[in-house]
């Protein structure tokens, strides 16, 4: 599903440039539940942004769903994001003046779906994250955990190939963290590829495969207990 070969990325800082990713190789197959671990500055967010087509890479190859990603303009990137990717952000990134239902329906709007149909589908996804009764509430009327569940519903609504979650539990307490992780696990169980970035060990432990990044290189890539069980199955 996601295949990365020799990926490099640098950011210019004044006259110098900061080499953030130093030749990564990573292969994530369909249906995997992978977490990227690393301290801040390890390059994990940069990796997610490149994988999410939110940013471009300098060197190396990136295949998304078998398609080589290169020379993307904003328009093509927007279409691919809409089609293949669902995002979950640490700060939720819900649009404040839209209700939970409208937020969930927004990716379908950009897909060109009619209003009635997309609101119906959005409602189904809200119910899936157990927020059906909250459909007409604005984001500031929801708790952090509820907001993140709205964001997850929004990421799922286009039925993408991959869910990309950037510190999805970073702004949540431990109880809601668990419920969000359970939700992601459930999604993965249904066959969706889920790609989580975190610096919390116990969050990473709940995924099937942990890739550790340090200073722009992968220092380890191993399956967790749950992962081993699953691969054995």
């Amino acid at each position: 599903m996601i295949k990365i070969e020799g990926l490099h990325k640098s950011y210019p800082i004044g006259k110098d440039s900061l080499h953030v990713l130093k030749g990564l190789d990573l292969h994530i197959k369909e249906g995997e539940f992978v977490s990227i671990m690393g301290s801040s500055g390890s390059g994990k967010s940069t990796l997610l942004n490149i994988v999410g087509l939110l940013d471009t890479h300098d060197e190396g190859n990136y295949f998304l769903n078998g398609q080589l990603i290169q020379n993307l303009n904003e328009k093509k990137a927007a279409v691919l994001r809409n089609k293949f990717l669902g995002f979950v952000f640490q700060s939720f990134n819900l649009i404040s003046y839209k209700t939970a239902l409208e937020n969930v329906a927004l990716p379908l709007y950009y897909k060109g779906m009619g209003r009635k149909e997309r609101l119906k589908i959005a409602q189904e996804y809200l119910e899936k994250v157990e927020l059906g009764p909250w459909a007409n509430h604005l984001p500031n009327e929801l708790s952090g955990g509820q907001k993140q569940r709205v964001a997850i519903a929004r990421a799922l609504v286009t039925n993408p190939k991959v869910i990309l979650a950037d510190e999805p539990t970073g702004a949540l307490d431990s109880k809601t963290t668990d419920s969000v992780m359970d939700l992601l696990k459930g999604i993965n169980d249904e066959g969706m590829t889920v790609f989580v970035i975190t610096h919390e060990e116990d969050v990473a432990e709940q995924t099937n495969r942990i890739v550790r990044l340090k200073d722009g290189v992968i220092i380890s890539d191993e399956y967790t207990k749950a992962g081993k069980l699953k691969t054995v199955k």
Partner: protein
Amino acid sequence: MFDLDSWREIFQSINKNKLRAVLSGFTVAFAILLFTLLFGIVSGLKNTFAEAFVDDAANSMFVRVWKTSKPYKGLQSGRSIQLKNKDYDYVEEKYNNKIQYLTARIYKNVSISYKSKQDSYNLRAVHPDHQFLEKTNIIDGRYINELDLQQASKVIVIGRLVKEDLFGERPALGKQVNVNGISYKVIGVFTDDGGDNEERLTYMPVTTAQKLYGNNDYISQINIGYDPKLDLNQAIAFGNQLERDLREKLDIHPDDQSALSVRNMAEANKGVNQFMIALYFIVIFVGSGTLIAGIIGISNIMIFSIKERTKEFGIRKALGAKPSSIIAMVVKESLLITALAGYLGLLLGTYILNQIGDSLEEYFIKNPGVDTGIVVGATITLVIAGLIAGYLPAKKAAQIKPIVALRAD
């Protein structure tokens, strides 16, 4: 463009940012309002000037004489100048090709009576062309004609108010009235846009007056309507030449203004024209300044609003919004606000001008109004400005990488 869904997005966005929408709308509405008022008031001024000339034909010239104030050719100053028939004939002969209408005028104060009614009135003895120069409207009967002139007929044309004084509701036409002891036949009744005083006048043939009152060939004044084909400068040159020639003929010092002068409406017209042109330049200057201020106002608000929404655009792009859909959203919003507000400003402006109506007449502003074309043009200018003001920053915002946009706060 007419996709209902995209307009729903825009209404939601405007609704969420009411203050911003109201502010930018206010800027536009105010600019158009000022623009409308400015043009309306100037057109009111113009109406006043146009009205000032309604009494007499715009191509009139008046030759008038008084006493000399300078000695000339051995003649002393203080000599009274008298125009005579030969002067009239001289003008008629010499300037035939530059003259549309020509009439002499003799002023008399007369007492007119009909049966028991009697009053004193101003009488003008004139040639038939006088009717056109004075814009006299005959409402009953006819004006003086060439035959009256040749025969020195004892006929009289009376103003509407003279007729009311002497005849009341009864018909006046064909009746004999007594003018300073001589009986005249009323051949016409007239009205005049110049006001009541003009309708208290009476007219008779110039030959009749000369024959019956003094038996001389004196005339008080010569009125000329220059050929309308002459432009203002040619007409002014004609007036100056006429003045020089008549002074020479009557042995008046060439610079003696107080002995003979030609009052030329062309000069007044030229002055008014220049004044109006200057006024229009000022209005165009101030008007476009107002519009530019409006445009800058919208641009500022749009730039600010787009900056404020950078993160929202980032979210939308992460969810699959193409740059073009972001631009379209912002531009449509800007367009909607400017068009609505511009229309409001226009409505308010025309309403105020209507309310003013003739109430500012003492300030020379009469019936102010605006040329729809100008205001529509101004509104379109602002709408286009709103489009550009929305498009440029939106294009920039849409090009920002979503990752940068998402980081914005």
